[in-house]
């Protein structure tokens, strides 16, 4: 990238710098886990449960082990003997949150391979390692499991029935967590309301479904007693920690790298049993081991998401002012809870959205069932509450005969009330304060992008007179982003004068190498090509957290800044020594340090790096230790609050119920945009996933706990030809919580589309007073309203 961009604009931050990641990817030179080939490598495959709930009587791997080409086979008993369970590996909520929100949490530990019971279709009960994946899958057919089917718990409600069998007997109940939170008078606030509406909202189960499934390669080196793991993960440091703990190795002897990763979206945001098992197998067998999850395995076994039921009551006055809201909801967590009660915590915190509502009370049950474990997926508990809240707002409007847009404006927090104290606790344990934003302006822009409210309503009226059904759908949300606990970064000046940056961020396609280079180039006043960024490798940063929860732009930039500040101090001290002048007279310029106002008085970073070296001939002033390198950890005070207004215009085919989306708009605010083009891409990608969830994607189970959608023939992902015209508009209200004014935007796009589509369809069907209060929005249901209304 040419330095002229920076020179003309005063910096790289805010410029649509092209992604430095793209060249390799476009030339087919990307390196994903599946691309890794090591000498002597063998291939693992897992035998997976065909039953949702079964007692394991026995698993015989003798025949599989004896097969030609097979080098290892293990049952749950074998794994349990070699790697006994370690308690306390599961994520727990921070104490601050547990202190402020009523909780009763019992998290079940997830066995690497169970030897007592199988708890969902797809859970592994044995593994095989062979010369090829083909042979390994042949050997799986020789494994003889004796499984005794148990009564399945196919959904959350069946798991809560009195006397229902238990998913985890030792817990004594099928509820992993009870949560309760209250604001103002809570439920009592409903009593003062002149109008009350009560509805059930159901958000179905769907999942991240990244283009690249999961995969792990591990290689153990006997001489150095070190283990290298390549995992398609969003959390390399977490993988390292769990592998080291399980295998009894120091963390320093385990290195985890996420090479190119083809999407994660939360589905790769926690450690899975395979991460640990493949590492163990490599050490056990003494050969590199590869496991690449195939799509069928991914659909059965990688975490699912959403799958909530909300019972909401909303109280409001004659003007549509919302006075109180209560919600009682169930999260179908599946058989385990990979991130504890995190999703439910998000839901509790995000329910009120951009509205000022005095009274709120919510209780939640995180329910264990015989479904695949539920973990965060882009939005993580927010699409569900956005659906419940934004459908409720439309119902209020319809009840009073007001325009849904007007009801939103009447309840929104005005910009002059920012920062706004919400009266709830975020899941980092800190009192929630919306730091900045202009919510009404976002909604106004969204409506304007569709032609303006009056024009839209006129078009609808005209269309209806021709028997055509147009609908306007709205949806607003807020999103806590950049959550802690911390992120790490190491910043060095290389002896050649180049800036080396490593962070614990762990991208899956976001463009982190590009944007962190933008940050560093501005902080060091160098051309961006002088900045070298390393991500997703525990070998380069001692402690890191990873890329989940719309956090990396905020948290990694904070860590890079702290480390940079530390190195800056030494750079100035050494430069002052070299230039024989006071530090206060110096400035960073032209890839080095110069004396302000004196063009000739300049030393390059290379010179400074040479001067900083340890040993003979160094030119450090007294008290300055050798080296130009710092590692820092940024611990954000709490989250920054992004938000958006969404609007869409749809037309319904009255004969088929088919929905044609004319245009979909998101007006999004993530504070200062580091790279507008990448920000656009993030929001648009999220929108497409949100639309997929609204209309196409569904992990459907039958009443017996069998998954019905085990391939991409049945689990329908939106493809390019299914994407309607999208418009993304950015407002930029800087965050007050960090040096760059940035907020996160990875997840936002996926939050609103389900409710926006539902609202648009209901708006189109307003002549029939139709209500769609569950997802996905089905054409058949829409067609039924026309059939019923002749």
């Amino acid at each position, binding site marked *: 990238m040419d330095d002229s961009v920076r020179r003309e604009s005063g910096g790289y931050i805010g410029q649509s710098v092209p992604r430095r990641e793209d060249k390799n990817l476009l030339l087919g030179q990307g390196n994903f886990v599946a691309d890794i080939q090591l000498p002597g490598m063998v291939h693992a495959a897992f035998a997976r449960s065909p039953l949702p709930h079964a007692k394991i009587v026995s698993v015989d791997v003798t025949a599989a082990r004896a097969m030609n080409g097979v080098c290892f086979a293990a049952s749950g008993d074998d794994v349990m003997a070699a790697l006994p369970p370690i308690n306390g590996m599961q994520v727990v909520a921070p104490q601050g949150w547990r202190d402020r929100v009523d909780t009763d949490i019992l998290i079940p530990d997830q066995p690497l391979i169970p030897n007592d019971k199988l708890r969902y279709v797809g859970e592994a009960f044995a593994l095989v390692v062979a010369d090829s994946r083909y042979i390994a899958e042949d050997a799986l057919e020789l494994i003889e499991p004796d499984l005794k089917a148990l009564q399945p718990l196919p959904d959350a409600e069946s798991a809560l029935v009195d006397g229902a069998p238990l998913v985890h007997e030792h817990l004594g109940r099928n509820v992993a967590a009870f949560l309760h939170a209250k604001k103002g008078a809570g439920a009592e606030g409903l009593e003062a309301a002149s109008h009350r509406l009560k509805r059930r909202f159901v958000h179905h189960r769907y999942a991240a479904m990244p283009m690249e499934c999961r995969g792990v390669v591990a290689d153990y080196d006997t001489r150095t007693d070190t283990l290298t793991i390549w995992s398609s993960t969003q959390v390399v440091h977490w993988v390292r920690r769990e592998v080291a703990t399980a295998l009894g190795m120091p963390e320093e002897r385990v290195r985890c790298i996420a090479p190119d990763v083809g999407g994660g979206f939360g589905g790769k945001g926690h450690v899975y049993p395979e991460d640990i098992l493949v590492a163990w197998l490599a050490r056990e067998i003494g050969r590199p081991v590869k496991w690449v999850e195939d799509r069928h395995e991914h659909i059965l076994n990688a975490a699912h998401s959403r799958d909530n039921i909300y019972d909401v009551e909303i109280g409001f006055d004659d003007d549509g002012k919302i006075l109180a809201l209560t919600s009682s909801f169930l999260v179908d967590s599946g058989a385990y809870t990979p991130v504890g009660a995190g999703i439910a915590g998000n839901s509790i915190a995000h329910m009120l959205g951009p509205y000022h509502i005095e009274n709120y009370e919510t209780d939640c049950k995180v329910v264990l069932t015989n479904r695949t474990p539920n973990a965060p997926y882009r939005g993580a508990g927010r699409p569900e509450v956005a659906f419940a809240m934004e459908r409720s707002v439309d119902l209020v409007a319809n009840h009073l005969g007001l325009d849904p847009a007007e009801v939103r404006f009447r309840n929104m927090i005005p910009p002059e009330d920012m920062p706004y104290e919400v009266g709830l606790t975020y899941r980092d344990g800190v009192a929630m304060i919306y730091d900045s934003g202009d919510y009404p302006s976002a909604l106004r822009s969204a409506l304007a992008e569709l032609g303006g409210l009056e024009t839209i309503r006129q078009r609808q009226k005209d269309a209806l007179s021709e028997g055509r059904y147009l609908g306007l759908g709205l949806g607003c949300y807020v999103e806590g982003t950049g959550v802690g606990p911390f992120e790490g970064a190491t910043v060095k000046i290389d002896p050649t004068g180049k800036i080396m940056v490593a962070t614990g961020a762990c991208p899956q396609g976001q463009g982190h190498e590009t944007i962190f280079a933008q940050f560093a180039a501005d902080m060091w006043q160098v051309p961006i090509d002088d900045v070298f960024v390393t991500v997703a490798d525990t070998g380069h940063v001692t402690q890191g957290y990873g890329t989940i929860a719309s956090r990396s732009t905020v948290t990694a930039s904070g860590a890079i800044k702290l480390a940079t500040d530390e190195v800056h101090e030494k750079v100035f001290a050494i430069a002052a020594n070299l230039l024989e002048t006071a530090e206060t007279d110096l400035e960073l310029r032209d890839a080095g340090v110069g004396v302000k106002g004196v063009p000739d008085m300049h030393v390059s970073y290379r010179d400074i790096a040479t001067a900083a070296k340890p040993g003979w001939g160094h030119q450090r002033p007294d008290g300055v230790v050798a080296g130009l390198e710092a590692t820092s950890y940024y611990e954000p005070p709490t989250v920054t609050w992004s938000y958006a207004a969404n609007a869409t215009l749809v037309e319904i085919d009255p004969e088929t119920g088919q929905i044609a989306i004319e245009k979909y708009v998101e007006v999004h605010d993530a504070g200062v945009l580091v790279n507008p083009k990448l920000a656009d891409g993030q929001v648009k990608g999220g929108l497409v996933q949100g639309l997929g969830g609204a209309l196409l994607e569904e992990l459907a189970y039958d009443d017996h706990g069998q998954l019905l*959608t085990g391939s991409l023939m049945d689990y329908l992902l939106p493809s390019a030809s299914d994407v309607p015209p999208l418009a993304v508009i950015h407002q930029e209200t800087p965050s007050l919580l960090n040096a760059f004014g940035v907020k996160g935007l990875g997840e936002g796009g996926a939050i609103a589309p389900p409710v926006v589509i539902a609202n648009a369809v209901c708006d189109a069907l307003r002549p029939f007073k139709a209500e769609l209060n569950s997802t996905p929005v089905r054409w058949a249901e829409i067609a039924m309203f026309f059939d019923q209304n002749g």
Partner: protein
Amino acid sequence: MKPASFDHLLPTSLHEALEMLNTHAPDARPLAGGQSLVPMMNFRLARPTVLVDLNRISDLAYISDAGDHLAIGAMTRERTIENSGLVRTATPLLYDATLHIGHLPIRSRGTIGGSLSNADPAAEYPATVLALDATLVAQSVRGERTISAAEFFDGVMTTTLEPDEILTEIRMPKAPPGSGSALVEISRRHGDFALAGVAAQITLDGNSVTDIRLAACGVGPGPIRLAESEMILRERGLSDDALAAAGGAAAAATDPDGDVHATAAYRRKLAGVMTKRAVGKAAARARQSA
């Protein structure tokens, strides 16, 4: 998702392929474009021990004008059919049907013979050949026989081909002058198998219907000829009432299963709607060409 072990045979002539199939039947399967068989093998739902790969037999891929019909070799790629001027003018319904098949990479591999032999009830080609009364030619070491489209399909993904037979040629009757045709379908995404689709070819004389052929896909165990709807339209013309009645008769003639994509009732309803739309579109094209 790796297939069970199998032998892969690569004959270069039809004769050789038929010999191989005869030797290894019933555990051998012919492989055409592989767009359905290969995924089934990867799921180990299909486990042929021998694949007789037809892709090296160049003389099974052709489109030729045979007077009253087009003779199309079974290994002709869907993409070739899509790009054929001859198909577009002589059998426009086949062209229209092809546009609805999957996506470009799928059509570039998939063949007409493979699609028909696979007999997916939601596929477009089975309904197309049924609507047009096409003749299918099958060969084995025992000789050649012709099968009418109506006799070719035999339930879900089943045909009346014997295990040692290969479908070699499809004889598509040419559309009569002044006729119009259309295949209309509804699917959840572009390129997916239809929830319901209807192939229609219609010949008009003024406002009266002199000939009409209708067949539906996606709404039964195989393609369904909509004879009752045809009769209604032949007798009553294209009035709104007649179209509604034809739609109703089509819905009644179907026998769909419900699945995760659509209930049986919804598919049946769609069959009626697609019938009206296919007839309307075909009729408009007939008027244009008249």
